[in-house]
């Protein structure tokens, strides 16, 4: 019998062990919910799965009486549109700023302190400024996410570019490349896998900013909805919405990981560069 520190789970055991705490939590919830509901059938704090199912059916299958839209889909579309636009803009801006900062020492000396300073500002503290400048429409919400995650992406890309072995940059020049060509054929392709990684890491923050902005001023969106129904203690709506947001975040992450692996097979091979 091996000592505990040397015992490793096999594949099957690993899956079972991983599920165990989740199942336990679920069980605790079901029992607690049942106890509360049997004491008071009108209790709203811990709805049963049946109640949540009814709420989901109402939001995901029936058109809303007020707008005629199916609410869950309308909310999801509104949120994903904001998130996609903001993350797209941030990725592009972060990539360009980061490459210039990391690849051109003169630009790096100029931009690095500014970007470092900007990345220290808590984005939510600027939200009032954004609402004042851009109004309460879509732009302010998108801008909050952009301001929140662009400096992080830019600094990560700049770091990656600085890590490119000097030999490769010199080599490109000995093959006849000028600065522009070196950026296009060497620095950009070497930085792209890192961009995917940086965006994946930023998505958590992007969701946070999105929901915060929607909670404060919006007429649709997943964040708007959960903060709206909070007034009625509608836990039967809030909990499925939270689960849905988590699922969306997990799916986005999975898709980006897959894409990165497909697009940059060379980076998976490990080694240098």
């Amino acid at each position: 019998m091996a000592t505990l520190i040397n015992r490793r789970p096999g594949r099957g055991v690993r899956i079972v062990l991983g599920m165990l705490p989740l199942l336990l939590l679920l069980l605790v919830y079901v029992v607690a919910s049942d106890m509360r509901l049997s004491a008071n059938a009108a209790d709203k704090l811990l709805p049963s799965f049946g109640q949540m199912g009814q709420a989901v059916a109402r939001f995901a299958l029936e058109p809303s009486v007020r707008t005629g839209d199916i609410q869950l889909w309308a909310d999801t579309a509104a949120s994903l549109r904001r998130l996609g636009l903001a993350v797209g803009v941030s990725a592009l801006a972060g990539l360009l700023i980061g490459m210039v900062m990391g690849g051109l020492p003169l630009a790096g000396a100029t931009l690095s302190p500014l970007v470092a300073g900007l990345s220290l500002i808590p984005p939510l503290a600027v939200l009032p400024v954004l609402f004042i400048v851009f109004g309460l429409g879509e732009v302010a919400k998108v801008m909050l996410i952009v301001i929140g995650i662009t400096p992080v992406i830019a600094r990560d890309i700049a770091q990656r570019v600085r890590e490119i072995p000097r030999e490769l940059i010199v080599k490109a020049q000995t093959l006849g490349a000028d600065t522009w060509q070196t950026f296009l054929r060497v620095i950009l392709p070497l930085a792209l896998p890192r961009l995917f990684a940086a965006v994946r890491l930023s998505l958590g923050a992007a969701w946070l900013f999105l929901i915060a902005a929607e909670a404060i001023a919006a007429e649709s969106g997943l964040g708007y909805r959960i903060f709206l129904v909070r007034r009625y203690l509608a836990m039967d709506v809030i909990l499925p919405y939270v689960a849905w947001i988590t699922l969306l975040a997990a799916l986005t992450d999975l898709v980006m990981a897959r894409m990165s692996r497909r697009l940059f097979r060379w980076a998976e091979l490990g080694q240098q560069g």
Partner: protein
Amino acid sequence: MSGMAFLALDKVWQRYGDQTVLEGVSLTLDEREFCVVVGASGAGKSTFLKLLLGTESPTRGRITMQGESISAGPDGRRGVVFQRYSVFPHLTVLDNVVLALDLRESRWLARTFGTARRRARDEARQMLSAVGLGASEDRYPAELSGGMQQRLAFAQALMAKPRLLLLDEPFGALDPGIRADMHQLVRRLWQELGLTIVMVTHDLKEGFALGTRLLVFDKVRQDPHAPEAYGARVTYDLPLNRNASASALAEVRATLENAKEMTDG
């Protein structure tokens, strides 16, 4: 002074702050020479190569190639093969070799298309089979052995048709057996393509086997209280051919071993 030497160094000094690395190096190099540079570590071999490459410019003195100064930075006139990081990990073997042509043909896109692309690929394939990599064109460098990666580095550098090929310990990371194959390859490429080569190595035997000329860098003056005060000079400049006197070579070997003991001690 002969104004049109292929490559000329005129009283070149290189200093970093208080540290003098090279002092008063003057020499000329003819086309088609295969010049091997040896010296103890810290004797300025790599600095010498960086000066020829243009990644550093001399503190004092002038380096010219066919009369023109070459200290403005690396460019297509001088090719290089480093010990590591010589090829691009994100390009396939074929694309690594096509790159020089892409850069030359297309100023803004740095890519060729259509017939130009086909022609570039054909040319690159010829170069790949010349270095024995014909069967690996779709692989990435990370999928190649160390020796194959260096073959690729040579093919890639030669596509730009450099006037001068600089080799910075190109076989330093390879196994001895593979090293011998690479020596043959370089010797053959040098002869067939009429290259001019400057190679830095710490392996004196390798230098004797490959070069037509041997440069030894060493510090002539030593100040034990300020080891950085004096730089290295070219202490031996020998032609390497069948007539090279055995006694001169033995002397070089003794000097280098002596220098090594000093740095190790």
